[in-house]
């Protein structure tokens, strides 16, 4: 393992201090418990929008803290959900009477810890709601699994609900928008290599030079099938087809297409893949109305990519277009 770190156990805290140094006008951080908070929080009359989860997916979630997106992010240890008291601390620091909305990716640890925090904050009289993001079509949503994972679609949920918060929409309204976006967003990923967790020291899984893992999650948990390497056209089609079939997305639909790098796939490959996805969608009659391309929901140093489709309507498109100013997204 070669990484630019000092102590594997201190990676998250050290990174947070660097992040604070890099973006003093946008955010402030705490290291015990670890929190990333909008510089101007709490905002009176605004819902506190909080997300979080294991570290290692940067810029998710801390990179999306700022005007028009998250009020706070709660980073856990690498690939490990934060504890309930950390989530409670984020609520206490940002909630200003309008309640708090927690955006939680569907992983057992995240759900348990965030729900526990919401219950505890509720006992203290704060109105806290949680919406679970579960956009990964690689996972069958059955009683025999923990359910679909929350992956790349989380970024779109955070942006759109963040815009609603900025417009002053109340807690119930923000929750409804979050649920609507979750209901309309689907993702699927592929890994070319496994990620290396700093404290583990070796890759979470290894793939041969001629192998890829289809349906990968964002924690280095292997995907559902391992297949021989294909060219970009083949891989993009393998990701796109299950997404299109799932919702389903049909000819005439207007979508946001998000092409995401898992961390170590360079932009030249990502743009190439995005171009393929645009072409395949055009052939299907699905109209791409908005785009996002880049490393936004990563898995440390994993090579690979994911595609996310969000079925748009005018309201969601307007919320997407609203101004945003965070470390990782700004327009």
């Amino acid at each position, binding site marked *: 393992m070669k990484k630019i770190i000092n102590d594997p156990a201190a990676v998250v805290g050290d990174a947070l201090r660097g992040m604070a140094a890099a973006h003093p006008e946008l955010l402030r951080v705490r290291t015990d418990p670890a929190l990333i908070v909008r510089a101007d929080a709490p905002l009176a009359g605004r819902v506190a929008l909080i997300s979080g989860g294991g570290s290692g997916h940067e810029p998710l979630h801390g990179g999306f803290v700022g005007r028009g997106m998250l009020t706070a992010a709660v980073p856990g240890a690498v*690939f490990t959900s934060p504890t309930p008291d950390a989530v409670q601390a984020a609520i206490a620091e940002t909630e200003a009477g309008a309640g708090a909305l927690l955006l939680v990716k569907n992983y057992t640890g995240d759900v348990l810890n965030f729900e*526990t925090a919401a219950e505890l904050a509720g006992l203290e009289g704060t109105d806290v709601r949680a919406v679970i993001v579960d956009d990964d079509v690689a996972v069958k949503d059955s*009683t025999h*699994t923990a359910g679909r994972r929350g992956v790349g679609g989380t970024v779109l949920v955070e942006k759109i609900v963040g815009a609603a918060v900025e417009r002053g929409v109340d807690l119930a309204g923000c929750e409804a928008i979050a649920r609507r976006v979750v209901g309309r967003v689907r993702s699927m990923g592929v890994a070319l290599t496994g990620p290396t967790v700093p*404290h*583990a020291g070796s890759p*979470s*899984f290894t793939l041969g030079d001629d192998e890829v893992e289809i349906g990968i999650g964002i924690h280095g948990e*292997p995907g559902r099938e391992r297949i021989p390497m294909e060219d970009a056209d083949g891989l993009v089609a393998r990701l796109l087809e299950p997404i299109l079939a799932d919702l389903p997305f049909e000819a005439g639909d207007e979508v946001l297409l998000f092409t995401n790098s898992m961390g170590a796939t360079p932009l030249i490959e990502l743009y190439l893949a995005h171009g393929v996805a645009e072409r395949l969608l055009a052939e299907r009659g699905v109209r791409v109305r908005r785009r996002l391309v880049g490393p936004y929901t990563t898995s440390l140093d994993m090579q690979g990519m994911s595609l996310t489709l969000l079925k748009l309507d005018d309201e969601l498109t307007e919320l997407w277009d609203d101004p945003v100013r965070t470390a990782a997204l700004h327009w």
Partner: protein
Amino acid sequence: MGCTAQDVIAALRAGAAVVADHRDELVELDRVIGDADHGENMDRGFRAVASKLDTAAPETPGAVLKQVATTLISTVGGASGPLYGTAFLRAASAVGDATELDGMAVAAALQSGLEGVVARGRAEPGDKTMVDALVPAVDAATAAAAEGAGPDRVLAVAAAAARTGAESTEPLVARKGRASYLGERSAGHVDPGARSTALLLSAFAESRS
């Protein structure tokens, strides 16, 4: 001889030591079917438990267990934090403010801990989780206690049953937690949560011998 607060503290220190010793093994088990953090998280949590016991050692078994619960919940993270935390919290409630635990009380504490894990994690036997180690442990402990066994014997049979239970997870296909995403490919590996449960119970039992 009953189990005092000092005995519970000694058991937890033994538990912390065994978790530290097996940190890499648990990371490795989790690397194969999960996300490679179980050993790291448990080690972080039990280090915090041991250091808390250095500075504040409560005076009843129940108070010790409650302190362990809150420490684990606030330091472990992941799914293991709430699950182990809830187990210790329910065990603390079960023993109440008794100053000494007999075999029946230890078995009841284990039973309540299991119920807490099931309530929070919604896992059943056969799902390839820590429940697969806990259920046989509780069954064995309850049977031994009913026959009049003391705490030492109750913990010993629980530990032995938990080890067997953990090993029994190897061929199973996971239905809960992150390993469930692997489907059939999760078979052939021991569940890290079941393994850590067996390790902890073994350490608790050995601290008494």
